[in-house]
């Protein structure tokens, strides 16, 4: 049984997915958008696909699969989710319709479909970066949020509370969209979505879709208020402390969004806000949780020849893609959480102190510094890379959250101004 694993070269997800596939004992072909130096030496295990052109990538996958049949395809981010859908359609294997994956990737298209289907979404308007912000600012409702259509990790997402704030936010998002790594990415980079700011508690939903039906794997609380002006994520903790009725509303909102987009198979990650008016779909992606955050999730232990062990989110996703039997999809009993370490300021990272002290905090399992010495750290909204991640597990969500904060307080990131 062969899995085609779509790994962009900038993903954090490589180890988690490659090692999960190894544990399952399946054949794996890793596809990336840039060639591995080992591709000629291992042409069945490594392949280069045109991630920028899903139809072309699907044709490439078809040619590959003629010699090496592919039984499942897994994507790890928004762009490869579209590629995976195209490949699944081309090969006749489990996956999402291409149109659904595309709609999930594009925030404006997603808003349109969700609104048309009656899913609660913020009011929105699409602008081009050539628009006159002074004129638009006069008719906008406040507070509002300006955001690019595709960038990940809340890069370029800015809140505005009044017309001067709108103009400043517009200019800032416009500048981000004009940066070289973004400007050439397509027509979407010439647009800004303006939407109503929805107050409330934000949660993240991890789910697995099978034949269009969402199985909620977990709901993460985001205990730090995401009220802007920028929207850098910090702490995710599960189980959620939302009331059961609110959790049911959140799950129903995720299902309604999946229905509206037409997603059929695979993982979803949804950002949903809940307030006294109910659950509001902020964004839904046809992929699993990003960064290293899946490390906060473990599912029920299963028997192996070496005894019992837990199942990772990546194993579940791979099993689902290949049509393998799924273990019970119950998350472990313990509470768990992850903190995306905030960027403390702009500059070049020289050292991170206090890692040992942070690890010594009770309940903390791991402090992973993923930024390398010499890496330039860019704060939000221009930035999108966290310096690292802290993981903790414990008896309660409150205890886990406290442990994450205590560990973070022990870290000191030494940053020098960039030249």
């Amino acid at each position, binding site marked *: 049984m062969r899995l085609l694993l779509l790994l962009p070269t900038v993903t954090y997800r490589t180890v988690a997915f490659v090692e999960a596939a190894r544990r399952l004992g399946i054949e794996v072909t890793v596809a990336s958008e840039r060639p591995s130096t*080992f591709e000629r030496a291992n042409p069945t*295990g490594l392949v280069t696909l045109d991630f920028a052109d899903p139809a072309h990538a699907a044709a490439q996958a078809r040619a590959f699969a003629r010699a090496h049949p592919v039984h499942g395809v897994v994507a790890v981010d928004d762009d490869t989710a579209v590629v995976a859908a195209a490949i699944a359609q081309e090969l006749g294997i489990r996956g999402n319709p291409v149109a659904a994956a595309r709609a999930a990737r594009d925030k404006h298209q997603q808003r349109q479909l969700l609104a048309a289907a009656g899913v609660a979404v913020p009011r929105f308007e699409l602008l081009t970066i050539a628009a006159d912000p002074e004129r638009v600012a006069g008719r906008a409702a406040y507070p509002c949020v300006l955001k690019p259509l595709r960038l990940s990790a809340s890069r370029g997402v800015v809140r505005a509370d009044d017309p001067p704030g709108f103009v400043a936010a517009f200019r800032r998002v416009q500048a981000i969209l004009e940066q070289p790594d973004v400007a050439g990415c397509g027509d979407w980079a010439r647009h800004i979505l303006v939407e109503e700011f929805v107050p409330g508690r934000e949660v993240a939903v991890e789910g697995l879709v099978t034949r269009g039906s969402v199985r909620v794997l977990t709901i993460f609380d985001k205990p730090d208020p995401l009220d802007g002006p920028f929207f850098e994520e910090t702490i995710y903790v599960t189980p959620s402390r939302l009331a059961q009725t609110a959790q049911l509303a959140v799950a129903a909102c995720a299902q309604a969004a999946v229905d509206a987009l037409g997603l059929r198979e695979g993982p979803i990650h949804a950002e949903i806000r809940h307030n006294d008016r109910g659950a509001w779909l902020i964004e839904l992606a046809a992929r699993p949780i990003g960064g290293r955050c899946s490390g906060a999730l473990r599912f029920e232990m299963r028997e192996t020849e070496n005894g019992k062990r837990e199942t990772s989110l990546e194993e579940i996703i791979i099993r689902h893609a290949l049509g393998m039997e799924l273990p019970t999809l119950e998350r472990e009993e313990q509470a768990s959480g992850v903190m995306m370490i905030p960027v403390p300021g702009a500059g070049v990272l020289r050292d991170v102190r206090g890692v040992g002290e942070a690890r010594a905090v009770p309940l903390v399992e791991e402090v992973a510094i993923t930024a390398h010495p010499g890496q330039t750290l860019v704060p939000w909204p221009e930035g999108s890379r966290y310096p690292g991640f802290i993981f903790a597990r414990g008896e309660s969500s409150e205890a886990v959250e406290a442990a994450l904060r205590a560990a973070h307080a022990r870290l000191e990131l030494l940053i020098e101004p960039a030249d």
Partner: protein
Amino acid sequence: MSAADVRITAEPIDNGRCKFLVSEPLHAGGVRRFASPDEARGSPLAEAIFAIPGADVSEVIVSGNLVTVVKRSPAAWPVVGKAVGQAIRAALAGGQPAVTSKPAASPKAGAAPVDDALYERVADLFESQVNPMVARHGGRVELIDVQDAVVMVRMAGGCQGCGMADVTLRQGIEAMLQQHVPEVKGIVDITDHTAGSNPYFAAAKK
């Protein structure tokens, strides 16, 4: 330096494997790999790690200031890791080498000559094929040792800390070893990837 001054950082690879980076060197004589409590006999650090209750440790690899522990039990790394940390601190404070030097002959008769022969073949493969390939991305892969037919490598340059290092290891190097040196039973990466300062591909949240 007292045991309290020793800094240890755990870097779990998955639920079965974890690297422990220690601020003090533990073993300067290359790499030592212990695949059973019997092999650990005489090396206080490895003995102590194998003896951690409930961990069901199956392998301990010590190289410089890096300890890699492989376990079978589902016990979480925070629990096992603290015991590993205590073992490391105790070994450093013990006044004798944390691990003994590699014996002239393996406890398993004939293993050392076999490993020596494998080492030569793997080294040839690394020199002739592996390193020229990774060099195209500014990388380098150092063959550290072969013990019980398990190859130990350390990545450097563009490979160290690279977001695709595990793909290079599994889909590249391991696949080549299976093809050219099929007697090799496994490959272990003992790289401290957190110290990589110039990775070829740097990860971003996606």
